């Protein structure tokens, strides 16, 4: 039986008076890649940001319902939101390395979490960059500025930075949309490798990417979850006509 990492029950979100998410209920399995697809404005990025409470930073946002991560309601008032964001890392569409060296980009998170031993930090930097499949490219230039890397390298560095603080879950909001095909292919291969250790949720506009990389796919439309299932089933025989119309390009 598959383990459920995140259980969402009747989650709704309002931006002031506007309802952006409508009673979302879904189970996100552990150590799998779940893709969120849907047309622009359907709520998939809003939903993604609910998982690590990034929407808390937006004024006039109200959330109802429950989001249980390993059985704990992350919106409970006793929950430490900083810890949430350590355990649930995020990679954004536009890579955002710090204006620091490659080494410092990775070491920054562990350092502010109290790890100051140089040899330990060296180990974390190497492990994280290896996991991000970029160690060989960067090992001889760790002192160089991260801003001098290519777009694809920066994005893999950002993934490495996320991994350095030992998350359980990685959220990716269109991680490859700004990258060339080869870099995209490297990111997708990396996702495939990472899911053995992490639970990954990816928002993508690219349905072929969703089909290539994910185990499960959830289709959102106008703030509602229309259908969720195994990616193979969604792309060969979706049960909802709206899903079929979207993935075949009839609308959206």
């Amino acid at each position, binding site marked *: 039986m598959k383990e459920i990492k995140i259980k969402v029950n009747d989650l709704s979100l309002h931006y002031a008076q506007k309802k952006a998410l409508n009673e979302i209920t879904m189970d996100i399995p552990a150590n799998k890649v779940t893709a969120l697809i849907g047309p622009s404005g359907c709520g998939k990025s809003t939903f993604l940001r609910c998982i690590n409470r990034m929407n808390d930073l937006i004024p006039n946002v109200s959330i109802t319902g429950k989001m249980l991560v390993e059985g704990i309601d992350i919106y409970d008032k006793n929950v430490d939101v900083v810890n949430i964001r350590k355990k649930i890392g995020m990679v954004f569409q536009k890579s955002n390395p710090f204006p620091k060296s490659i080494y410092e980009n990775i070491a920054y998170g562990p350092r502010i979490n109290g790890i100051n031993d140089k040899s330990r930090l060296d180990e974390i930097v190497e492990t994280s960059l290896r996991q991000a499949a970029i160690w060989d490219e960067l090992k001889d230039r760790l002192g160089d500025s991260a801003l001098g890397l290519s777009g694809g390298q920066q994005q893999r560095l950002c993934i490495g930075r996320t991994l350095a603080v030992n998350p359980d879950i990685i959220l990716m909001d269109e991680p490859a949309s700004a990258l060339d095909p080869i870099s995209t292919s490297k990111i997708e291969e990396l996702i495939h490798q990472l899911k053995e250790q992490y639970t990954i949720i990816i928002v993508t506009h690219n349905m072929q990417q969703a089909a290539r990389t994910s185990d499960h796919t959830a289709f959102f439309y106008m703030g509602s979850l229309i259908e969720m299932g195994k990616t193979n089933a969604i*792309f060969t025989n979706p049960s909802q006509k709206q899903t*079929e119309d979207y993935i075949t390009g009839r609308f959206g």
Partner: protein
Amino acid sequence: MGTHFEIELAKLKTIIERIGLLAEGQVSEAIKVLLQEPEAAQPKVIKKTENKIDKLDVKIDEICQRIFALKQPVASDLRFIMSAMQISNEIERIGDLSISIVKKAKNIKEKHDLILKFNVADISKLVELITVKTNNCFVTREGSTIGEILILNKDIRNKCEDAIHEIVNEMKVNSKAVVSGTNLVIVLKHLERISEHCTNIAEYVYFMVNAKIIKHEKLDDILPGE
């Protein structure tokens, strides 16, 4: 007017319908030759139609390949493209079998008596009927038609087996009937194969509509009670 992709899918459907009708015509003409009906087409006309079928079969493969490569179809579109290639292949085989029936029919001496004696006309008409139903099945995608085709195929198969059995018995006692009888057996096997190809097409239509592969399932499991 739909999207560019929808137009392409519609064009593919039209070509399959066209090749289906050509093959249906070939079966009909082959049966006319077999039954020595006066309005049977000339061999060169039948040959010309075979060439058209072959060209359309290649065209269908080319279109499907292009769609797979460039459009990455999914869901019902994917099932349609997959089925289109298979259906075209089945139709092309029906065309080939029809040509073979025409050739073999010439070697059946005194075929009129043999055909009467072994119920070949009835079997032939059933095969004509199954090809018509198969073309309708692809066009309409109706579940009831699929069922009719599967049942009709079973009937054709049983009748062919019975006829072949009787021809073999005839050949055992009448050495003069061996050459004609052998060719008639081959013709009956061809007719049975045409019916099987029609069944395969019906199964692909079922897959297109229901997303379920039934090609190795027994008739009783697909249509309980038959």
